[in-house]
């Protein structure tokens, strides 16, 4: 049986007990949806005492299925005002599973001043400890100090100053396997602010002396299937640009066809996109002792992560991803990869979402606060966020808050959350996902690029988005979507895997049903939280301004968006 840990911040108590039977075979996004709909009033104040912050592992956590040790973080989002599941790699999921813990619930608000950390020690005990000495620290320094204080392999989940200051763009950072860098981010939706509101600075998970063993329904069958699936992923990864290069390889695909966002989603092409693409990246890695093909969690066969060094060969950042590069790069008219890597480092350290922060900078450029392409200016503004200046606090409110404050007419957000690195006019199914995902504008909820007839056409876009949103939803309950993408021909085996682990049905409908039920639960939460059809729309400018790269506008009609989750 999996356990849950309940942390009540009101009086700083910690309780460990068996997880409810009905939640045992859930994980990730599904578990978060089912937990939140039953335990958190949708209309609560996201930073108030009724909201809860939850961390959970996946359905297959602790198993030998590759990438099954991702972690999900959930709660009512301080940014969107709706339900939020933010999915993250790193080492924490694997170690939580080794402790036999599937779910951590953090509820209530402290009545006294203070700052705490939750500590799973090597003996398997879990306790809340004083962390006031860490107040105001950012993630790299914090993690460094934690490692100095404990002589054991461990994972960290932490917030920087941004979370403590309740910035709505605040992330929760998780340490990478092996390197321990706090560079994996549960970035979206401002869950770092939720953690900050609970005054929980970090969670430390030490590698336990006694590893929890799960009682499989049919271990032999599980191993047989997982072996087959792992082999598929390993085979697929050989030719996967995410493995051979990194997610930055996406730049070449999107830069050529107008999907790459340029100058605050102007829809233009960016002639210099190759300067922030795979070639520059690989050359810099090789010349400076950087690395790619790194695993963020143990046992990953895709290994898309990387370590990027500066010109002098010093470590700068890791997990430098396409979204960060696209949005701080061409979307801010910046073509300096080193400057972008520095921005990534600053965001990880402070603990903010690079997508939200980079869109905020583009809106600042659109509004004349910065010049297009001014990378020094962006770094200066990120510094203001780090220092907590008055303008820094405003920037921490996210792209929409900043855009409105500056009178910007073109604010690229849906459900108050900034759009990811794909122009929705030139991959319209992704636009449908941005518009309708209960998560707000989130590419991981269903990126349709290349999957409909034509990315710029109307046909089959809502269809492709619907299918992918269901698939991504159940994938987010199980594993990393990059490994999942190599399993597509054998997806029904995932149901057999569930049956081999937990018993019950091995019908594929169990898996697809998980996706559908989760989406509908999230929609119900959002509806009760006050979100309406009007929140399922893209900003007007995507409908009204043709993309100069293709002439395309977003022209999926409202009814198609309204019925996308009619199952």
């Amino acid at each position, binding site marked *: 049986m999996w356990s849950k840990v309940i942390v009540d911040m009101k009086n700083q108590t910690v309780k460990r007990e068996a997880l409810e039977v009905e939640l045992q075979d859930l994980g990730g996004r599904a578990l978060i949806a089912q937990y939140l709909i039953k335990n958190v009033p949708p209309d609560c104040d996201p930073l108030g005492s009724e909201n809860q912050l939850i961390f959970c592992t996946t359905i297959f956590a602790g198993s030998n299925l590759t990438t099954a040790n991702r972690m999900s973080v959930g709660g009512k989002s301080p940014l969107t005002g709706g339900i939020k599941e933010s999915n993250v790699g790193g080492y924490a999921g694997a170690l939580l599973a080794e402790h036999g813990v599937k779910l951590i619930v953090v509820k209530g608000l402290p009545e006294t001043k203070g700052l705490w950390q939750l500590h799973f020690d090597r003996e398997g005990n879990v306790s809340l400890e004083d962390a006031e000495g860490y107040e105001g620290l950012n993630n790299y320094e914090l993690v460094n100090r934690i490692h100095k204080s404990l002589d054991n392999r461990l994972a960290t989940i932490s917030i920087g100053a941004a979370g403590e200051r309740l910035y709505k763009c605040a992330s929760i950072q998780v340490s990478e396997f092996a390197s321990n860098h706090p560079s994996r981010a549960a970035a979206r939706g401002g869950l770092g602010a939720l953690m900050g509101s609970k005054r929980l600075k970090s969670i430390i998970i030490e590698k336990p002396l006694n590893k929890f063993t799960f009682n499989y329904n049919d271990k032999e069958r599980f191993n047989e299937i997982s072996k087959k699936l792992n082999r598929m992923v390993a085979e697929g990864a050989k030719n996967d640009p995410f493995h051979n290069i990194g997610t930055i390889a996406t730049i070449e695909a999107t830069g050529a066809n107008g999907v790459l966002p340029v100058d605050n989603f102007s829809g233009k092409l960016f002639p210099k996109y190759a300067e922030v693409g795979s070639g520059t990246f690989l050359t810099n890695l090789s010349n400076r002792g950087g690395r790619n093909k790194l695993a963020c969690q143990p046992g990953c066969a895709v290994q898309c992560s990387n370590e990027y060094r500066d010109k002098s060969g010093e470590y700068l950042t890791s997990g430098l991803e396409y979204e960060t590069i696209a949005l701080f790069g061409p979307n801010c008219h910046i073509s300096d990869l080193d400057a972008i890597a520095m921005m990534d480092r600053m965001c990880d350290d402070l603990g903010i979402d690079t997508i939200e922060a980079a869109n905020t900078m583009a809106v600042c450029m659109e509004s004349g606060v910065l010049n297009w392409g001014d990378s020094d200016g962006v770094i200066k503004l990120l510094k203001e966020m780090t220092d907590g200046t008055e303008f820094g606090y405003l920037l921490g409110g996210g792209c929409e808050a900043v855009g409105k404050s500056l009178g910007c007419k073109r604010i690229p957000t849906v459900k108050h959350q900034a759009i990811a690195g794909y122009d929705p006019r030139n991959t319209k199914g992704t636009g449908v996902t941005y518009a309708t995902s209960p998560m707000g504008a989130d590419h991981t909820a269903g990126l349709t690029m290349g999957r*409909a*007839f034509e990315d710029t*056409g109307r*046909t089959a876009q809502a*269809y492709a988005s*619907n299918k992918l949103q269901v698939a991504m939803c159940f994938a987010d309950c199980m594993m990393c979507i990059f490994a999942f993408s190599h399993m597509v021909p054998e997806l029904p085996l995932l149901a057999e895997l569930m049956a081999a682990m937990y018993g019950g049905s091995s019908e594929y409908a169990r898996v697809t049903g998980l996706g559908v039920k989760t989406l509908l639960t999230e929609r119900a939460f959002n509806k009760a939280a006050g979100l309406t059809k009007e929140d399922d729309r893209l900003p007007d400018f995507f409908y009204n301004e043709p993309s100069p790269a293709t002439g395309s506008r977003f022209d999926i009609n409202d*009814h*198609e968006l309204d019925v996308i989750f*009619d199952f």
Partner: protein
Amino acid sequence: MITSFGVFVPIIMGRGASYRTGLKVRELGCKKVMVVYDKGLKELGITDVILDNLHNAGVETISFDGVVPDPPDTIVEAAAALAKKEGIDGIVAVGGGSAIDSAKGINVLMNNEPPIMKYFGIQKNLKKGVPMVFIPTTSGTGSEVTNMCVISCTSMGNKDSVVSPVCVGSLAILDPELTIGLPPKLTAATGIDALAHAVEAITGGQANPLSDALAREAIRIIAKWLPVAYRDGKNIEAREYMILASTYAGMAFTNALVHLGHCIAHALGASFHIPHGIACAVTLPEVIEYTSKTEFKKVRMICECLGVDVSEEATAEAIGETARKALRSLIKSLDIPNIKELGITLEDAQKLAPKITADSGMALAPYRITTAGVAEIIKHAFDA
């Protein structure tokens, strides 16, 4: 909206056009062609004339007369093996959709390894085949101008399509005289298939101004001339118009694609073995009424082409209802049976709803419809 019209097949047309088959095949550089047809057509004497014509032009022929309705993969694969063995350099198909789709299936396998089911779906990178000439003998399928073939998959028990440039003919020969002998029931069923292509193409997500123009003209012609051809099969003017309308509708739908009506038709056809045109007809009025919610401007066009008035102020729902009634009236005038008259129970027909909504063709529907919504359409159409 920016749209595209990309599939186009050269055509020669008119009474007696099929007498040019030999000349045209020779012009294409073919020396030995496989002629694909069904045995029934041979009995009518149509194929012998075309075979003679080819021989007189100095073109050698291999006959494949094993075409059956809803061509199964096994037959297509056997014919392709024969074609490769014989070293043919062209294919001539004579007949309805089954003959033409069989020919396309054979062509897919000319330079791509069987089984054909490997190639279901949109295929952009298949190896080229040989020149194909299509001579339709019905006015409905439109397959002579499309880039797809529908094949029955015997192992999966369903129908699926290969969509590929390899399925595009080098020439279509439209000779209305070849359709003179088509019996009334087949005239009606194939004609309604063409109507279904036109009204679904005009309301689909890939519709474009060119396909709309072709579809509108097809609807106008069918509304006027299909009842004439149905009552008087010897009326050559009606036959001329109908073969033209069928080709117009084919050109429209290969560029704009069809959606819900064809998903329903494929499910009905596979489960109850009813002719494709009839299967398209039974729920077509309700399908177009469903599209009106978002495609009301297009449905208004359909009403105009059918010759019914729609007021300027009409709502989307009212336009949909008008189209439904007009289409039903046309279908009724051709004595096409409804689902009940086909001997299918409502329960059995509605059981198909999950299969219909799971059909990948639903990707082309103007907006998402639930299984319950499809069951409702079937219920409404059941004894209408």
